[in-house]
């Protein structure tokens, strides 16, 4: 009906047919960013540069020569990707004011396709966290906190509590990007995913969050957290859009020696995906302690959906899942300690005024530049890397990592095509709840369902599924085989069509509602 029309409405073809111009689109997004500033989703808005890009795009459309589907499409990029000429802060004092001289490969690719870069989005400092609450620019607010759906459900709560204290987190660490997409300020955003940092906020913000296979998309220019697990993540409002963005980003990059050499062919998803011939695995270990009964029920319903469509749905086991958090802790902190060693105040970034000696300058710079979370991980990591500890911690963790990866190999090798799991243990918690526990505790809890896919380098995607009793998004996760993104996204698209996740009803978006802005409400651009 009406809703389906809206979903299928394509802003790209609107641009092509001249129903809307890139400049108008850009201006609307910028205006919406301004009126949703309270979300704190953006650290930097590159207004002038974006309008210029939109202008250029417009010229191309007028000539009838757009660069592709992404030409003129407003996008946002997480602030741990290098963007030439635009500040890249990683939400840290260490890089406040840092203007990189080069673009990350993924940023360059998007710009080369004509995408319009609106700005850099907020995150946990150096991508360490699962709430997007621990950056120096403050926490990101989940747009759903201000949705009619959430407000309606919180009417029963005490009236004396106002909106201010009730707002919920976005999840993290790519919370800014998830919020930006969720609140319609852009059509796609880049995040990063090391332990779930794209999928987690995607689930909480009701958007699609794709973690590609490790080695498929270049990490050149992504400021690393854990080099052996990081991937650029893609956040969009529908699965088709994610496929388009993936197509423009994937492929070997000579600047990143960990990208695969094979030629990547961008693919289009079938308009009528068919899952009847597939085998869907339900890993029993993902019924983790703390999983809300709501999500458990939803997970079960989803499995039934597949069954009813003719797919084979079987329970499988990934026995080493419960070790993944501890294993991750060792490997992650070790790499963090190493990666952060370059921040010494000498070549770039914050430099302390302390100048009694080089060593004292280093120490003061790093104390001033890094927050507690970062410093804590550096200390842990250095401990694990000490000669006397290396074998017992680092090497052991690597062995456990191999076991975790082998769990998946066994299951996929046994005929399972896709795994279906929850993405998060619950819907988004209110900020004041979230901060009661420290970052480390939260990360350990929240990463449990997403972390193992990073250990194994596998592709995984969050698909928004339904609203919780509190009116907040719940997403489910699909995990696929290495480099089988096409199959993964096909299944995700089928599922998306089945569940028909509701559109967020945001006052700010409605306010900007007129003919031109009609396009804003369209979920997709492709």
């Amino acid at each position, binding site marked *: 009906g009406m809703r389906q029309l809206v979903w299928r409405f394509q802003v790209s073809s609107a641009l092509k047919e001249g129903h809307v111009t890139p400049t108008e689109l850009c201006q609307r997004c910028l205006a919406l960013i301004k009126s949703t500033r309270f979300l704190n989703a953006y650290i930097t808005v590159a207004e002038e540069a974006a309008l210029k890009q939109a202008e250029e795009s417009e010229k191309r459309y007028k000539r009838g020569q757009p660069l592709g589907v992404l030409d003129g499409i407003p996008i946002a990029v997480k602030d741990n990707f290098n963007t030439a000429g635009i500040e890249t802060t990683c939400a840290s004092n260490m890089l406040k004011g840092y203007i*990189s001289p080069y673009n990350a490969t993924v940023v360059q690719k998007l710009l080369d396709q004509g995408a319009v870069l609106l700005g850099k989005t907020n995150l946990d400092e150096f991508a360490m966290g699962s709430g997007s609450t621990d950056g120096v620019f403050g926490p990101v607010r989940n747009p759903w906190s201000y949705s009619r759906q959430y407000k309606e459900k919180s009417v029963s709560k005490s009236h004396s509590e106002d909106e201010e204290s009730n707002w919920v987190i976005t999840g993290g660490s790519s919370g800014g990007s998830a919020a930006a997409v969720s609140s319609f300020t852009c059509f796609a955003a880049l995040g990063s995913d090391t332990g779930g940092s794209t999928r987690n906020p995607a689930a909480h913000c009701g958007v699609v969050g794709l973690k590609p296979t490790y080695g498929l998309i270049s990490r*050149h220019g992504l400021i690393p957290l854990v*080099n052996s697990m990081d991937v650029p993540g893609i956040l969009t409002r529908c699965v088709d859009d994610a496929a388009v963005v993936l197509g423009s980003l994937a492929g070997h990059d000579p600047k990143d*020696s960990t990208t695969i050499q094979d030629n990547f062919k961008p693919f289009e998803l079938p308009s009528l995906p068919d899952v009847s011939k597939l085998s869907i695995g339900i890993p029993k270990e993902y019924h983790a302690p703390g999983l809300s009964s709501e999500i458990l029920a939803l997970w079960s319903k989803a499995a039934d959906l597949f069954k009813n469509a003719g797919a084979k749905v079987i329970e499988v086991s990934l026995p080493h899942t419960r070790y993944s958090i501890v294993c991750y802790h060792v490997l992650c902190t070790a790499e963090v300690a*190493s990666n952060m060693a370059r921040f010494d105040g000498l*070549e770039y970034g914050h430099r302390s005024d302390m100048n009694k000696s080089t060593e004292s300058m280093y120490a003061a710079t790093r104390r001033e530049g890094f927050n507690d979370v970062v410093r804590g991980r550096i200390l842990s990591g250095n401990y694990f890397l000490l000669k006397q500890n290396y074998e017992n911690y680092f090497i052991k963790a690597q062995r456990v990592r191999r076991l975790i990866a082998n769990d998946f190999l066994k299951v996929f090798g046994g005929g399972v095509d896709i795994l279906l799991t929850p993405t998060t243990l619950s819907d988004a918690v209110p900020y004041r709840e979230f901060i009661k526990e420290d970052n480390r505790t939260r990360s350990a809890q929240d990463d449990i369902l997403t972390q193992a896919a990073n250990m194994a380098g596998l592709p995984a995607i969050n698909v928004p599924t339904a609203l919780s009793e509190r009116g907040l998004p719940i997403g489910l996760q699909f995990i696929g085989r290495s480099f089988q993104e096409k199959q993964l996204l096909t299944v995700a698209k089928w599922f998306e069509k089945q569940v028909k996740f509701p559109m967020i009803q945001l006052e700010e978006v409605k306010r900007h509602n007129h003919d031109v802005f009609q396009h804003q409400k369209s979920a997709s651009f492709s």
Partner: protein
Amino acid sequence: LAPWVPVVGLEIHAQISSNSKLFSGSQVQFAAPPNSLVSFFDASLPGTLPVLNRRCVEAAVMTGLALNCSINKKSLFDRKHYFYADLPAGYQITQQRVPIAVNGSLSYSLCIDNKMSQMVTKTVRIKQIQLEQDSGKSLHDDTRSQTLVDLNRAGVGLMEVVMEPDMCCGEEAAAAVRELQLILQTLGSSQAVMAEGQLRVDANVSVHHPGEPYGVRTEVKNINSIRFLAKAVDYEIQRQIEELENGGTILNETRAFDSKLGCTVPMRDKEGKQDYRFMPEPNLPPLILYDAKSLPANMNHQQVVNIDWIHERLPDLPSVKRAKLVEQYGILPEHSFALLNEDGLTEFFENVVKQTQMKPKKVIGWILNVLLSYLKEHSLTVKESPISSLMMADLLNLLEKKEISSTAAKQVLAELWKGEEKTPLEIVKEKKLELIQDQKELEQICQAVIDGQENEVIMMALG
């Protein structure tokens, strides 16, 4: 007093001769303006990644093969962490776990008793060769309490060659390094000029009594020439012996060689007991090398390094060159050493031999004893010689044809050194140095002398 056995091992860093750095595309060049050869990766800008330079891998394979090493078909890269101003990333990328080449050997020769007449061949085991990054340079300006950092050298490729403690004195260490230098220069894998920092040597020295375990060793750094290497090692051996004989102990420390004072001094403790927190370099996959057997059929040969292909194209190493010279020209082994030891001298010698009838066995004396000592006296290289091989050949031909004596030849040479573009023949004529061959002419001269010296002749005739 019981005898002492000195034990010397060496860690040698050779800068790879390549256009660009080990993991980035910035240029490698000596003495460029500060910080003009620094890529984003070299400066450790966040988000940059290493990309391995193929030429550096080939250089290391060549060197490994020339040193009789096993080339590891799979080697790994690691991070070695420490904080220092000239190390922008806070870690160096090196090969600690599995280096590219292991278990080789290097043969070198020494003169016994300082005579060039007796040479003995020795061997030192090569423990391993590893690829690693060079650091930048820091200059301490104490007057202004500041440190100036130049990152031009940061990231340049190095081959670290580790020689086992098979040497026993400065002379051996110097000879081994000299031979390594010649090998590297022959291969072209490093220009190995110590003065330009392309070859850096650290010596590990200890002493012990025969039959007892090895003593505590010290590391000696800041050695800037092969001559100083011999001096530094011998000084350190002596120092340790004296220390121990006086009842003292040797500290496991790093010492710097002071070339002015000719001694080693403890270095400012810049690292202490460092734990380098080695960790695999996650941004570089294992380095896989192939040989003819293991090379897959469909592999793009631009993308791989083939050990056998490199082996087939190795040039003649110095030891082979020397053997060929001895065989071809009938010269002595010590002559061949002297020829290879001086840049361009072999070529000069061979050019003279080509253009003269004099036997090479005789030519060599003129080259080594006359030409070379003249060049040394005036601190000239062969390239800078005012006498060309052609001129030398002409001169030796005159000598060979007995048109001049060898004394006269030396006089002609003295003239030729002036570089006045006169040919030997012209000088001979000018100075009337021709040997008189005519019997009658000789008799006339003798008679004239006798006539002029009647009394002396009578005295001689009387006995």
